[in-house]
């Protein structure tokens, strides 16, 4: 076959171009450490990456939700155990003061301590996390309890998504905690703060029957507080487990995404070396190929 000049030049330039292109492609992979740098590098994997990105983002927001939720629940837990402690203390005082050994003077002195306990309980009931009052239902920007223990919040349950289609209620309904609910009222129960107030007033008035009544009520509320504590603890455990699931889910998502789009560094490096060698030898060969001509030998 005849080989013409243009054929030779075009073959040479074509080869050099191809070698350069391969070389710069593998340089690109090496520099970005990614297998997929444009859509057409692997469109199928690219769509997977887009979906994975969205899932990873969602996973991170669930985790952020959980971190936030944990703080909120811990605040609730602290408040509940504080209230529980105060109720126990009040009940101890009430049982002691129900004893005939004490006179009205020591009872009114104790009443002052109970009044202090009431203040503390109201303060605990108005616990906040990041300026959000945890027992106020949806009315999170105003305190749950007034100074005399009236519930000011509403019945809103704050739900947060901690997993795909898994919403958890993170707040403890203040109205049920501080009560009384209509049912309880029917059964003759007082609210939590009212019970303490009954104790305080009975101590002030030296009313032993009132103290007995208060002891019963405090017992009732202690039970309620500990059952709420149990609920909160269970929620905490549930979201803790969800968090662990999310963590491992995220690891596998990130791994999968990396498998899809990240370059195999050993392969990328050796590809680069290989294409570089090809480019150099092509340049060398082309230089030699294009040089000799009969014209060089005609003198």
């Amino acid at each position, binding site marked *: 076959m005849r080989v013409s000049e243009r054929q030779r030049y075009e073959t040479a330039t074509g080869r050099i171009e191809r070698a350069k292109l391969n070389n710069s492609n593998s340089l690109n992979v090496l520099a970005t450490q990614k297998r997929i740098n444009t859509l057409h590098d692997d469109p199928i994997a*690219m769509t997977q990456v887009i979906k994975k990105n969205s899932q990873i983002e969602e996973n991170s927001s669930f985790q952020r939700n959980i971190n936030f939720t944990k703080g909120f629940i811990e605040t609730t837990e602290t408040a509940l155990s504080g209230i529980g402690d105060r109720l126990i203390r009040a009940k101890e005082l009430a049982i002691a003061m129900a004893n005939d050994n004490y006179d009205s003077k020591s009872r009114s002195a104790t009443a002052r301590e109970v009044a202090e306990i009431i203040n503390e309980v109201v303060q605990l009931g108005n616990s906040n996390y990041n300026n959000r009052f945890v027992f106020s239902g949806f009315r999170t920007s105003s305190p749950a309890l007034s100074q005399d223990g009236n519930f000011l919040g509403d019945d809103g349950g704050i739900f947060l998504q901690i997993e795909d289609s898994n919403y958890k209620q993170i707040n403890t309904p203040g109205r049920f905690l501080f009560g009384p609910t209509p049912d309880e009222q029917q059964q003759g129960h007082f609210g939590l703060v009212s019970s303490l107030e009954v104790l305080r007033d009975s101590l002030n008035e030296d009313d032993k029957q009132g103290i007995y009544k208060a002891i019963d009520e405090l017992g009732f509320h202690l039970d309620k507080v500990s059952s709420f504590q149990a609920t909160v603890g269970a929620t905490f455990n549930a979201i803790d487990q969800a968090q662990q699931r999310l963590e491992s889910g995220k690891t596998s998502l990130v791994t999968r995404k990396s498998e899809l789009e990240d370059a195999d560094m050993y392969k990328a490096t050796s590809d680069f070396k290989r294409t570089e060698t090809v480019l150099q030898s092509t340049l060398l060969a082309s230089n030699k190929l294009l040089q000799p001509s009969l*014209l060089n030998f005609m003198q």
Partner: protein
Amino acid sequence: MMHQVVGSYLLAEGILLFYMLEHNYEWAFHSLNIGAESLYNTRQGVDTTSHNMANAQTEGYSRQRVNLTTRDPLSKRNLLIGNGSYIKNITRSHDQFVENQLVKASSAKGESDAAKNELLALEEIFNPELANSVSDEMNSFFDAINSLANFPEELSTRTTVYEQGKNLIAAFKRVDSEVKRNRDGINDSLAHMTGEITDSLRTIADLNIQISQSEVGQQNQANDLRDKRDLLVRNLSEKMDISYYEDKWGMLTIRGPSDILMVEGNSAVSFQYQVNSDNENMYDIIITDFEGDPFRNVTDAIGAGSLKSMIDVRDRVASNLLKNNNVMAMTFANRFNEIHRDGFGLKDFRESRGRNFFDPVTDVDSAAKNLQFSLDIENSVDAIAAASTPNAPGDNIIANRLLSLRNEKMLDDGNATFTEHYANYVGNLGIETVRAKHVSEANDILKGSLESAREAVSGVSLDEEAANMIKWQTAFTASSKVITTVDEMLETVLSLKR
């Protein structure tokens, strides 16, 4: 007797000399003629060689050959005397079969190259390395909604929702305007190409006339003119589907899309563009008749070449991208509003509901372009509705419902979430680009091998030309020698008589 003999001998000698002189002259001039013509022939050989060498790298050039033929012999005294040679013609090395293949391959390559280039440009808009793609901004926006669900009463989370919403709107608009910019670019190139095509058709028609005039009544071929015309035809075939044949006067008749007559003799149609108001003011391509009056709209009739794929990318691919973007913007905005209207805001908006988040989208064709916040949201972030009940700053029920849109299959008739839909249509663009790239690479190889085949026949080899030059030069020297030799011989004859 002796005298007589000597006398008659002398006479005979004189007659012989006369005879010889007479015929020697004829013989001498004959050789001079042959030598002179040979000088001319060999000089032409060197000329053609230098012409070949000068065009060694000219695109579309076919190497030329000087074809020598022996002159018919002279008949003298029952002898057939050789009469030298003359240049019969100068021909180009040309293979019409390869040329036809090449024209077809050019059409295919023009088509796939244009498709590849335009798709690569469009693909850049959705480059995964860009951080502000619609999908990324959507993720960030939902992230902001998630913060809103965590802290519905906070000003900062509301501001984040507002800012991320703005970014999301900008991302929709960016896709819209970038795709449109690309589409307008293609449209302008099309308009530009109609001018180029008209010029080439006109030039081909002019060459038709020049070729038929140069070749009339001669054995010669107008080599260089034909090379030029072949190249024009090949370049034309890169742009569209053509068929052609040569008539007996050497003129090319070319038919274009839908077999429309484009060049006949020295007449050529022209290509024009005109605005089509039914296709978003994109250009239609119109072929005029030989008189220049509009004849056919061939926008959708072009069957191959770069015109075809440019029109395809402009009218199908780009429109499809715009449509997907618009549908996503509209569906999302309206669905988001639907839920948002159920909710209550903060402060001044704590007891009122029914507000839109985005300005309601009614026209799907301009959804992305006109997407914006509703006036309420634009004026105050307190208008963002997170609460399902009035006066409830901690209520995040609406925020949670908005958040659930992330996984709601709201697109493709309820078959795809927002992210899935985005990934699908962008993925389809990627697949189309890959296909165009592969086809283009295949056509590269095909056309490359055909070009190689053409070059093998028609291309100039400098080594070969160098050898030819030596050949002609040697022949030239030899012819010169013939002339000097004859000259010397004549000298000898003339010196007989002192």
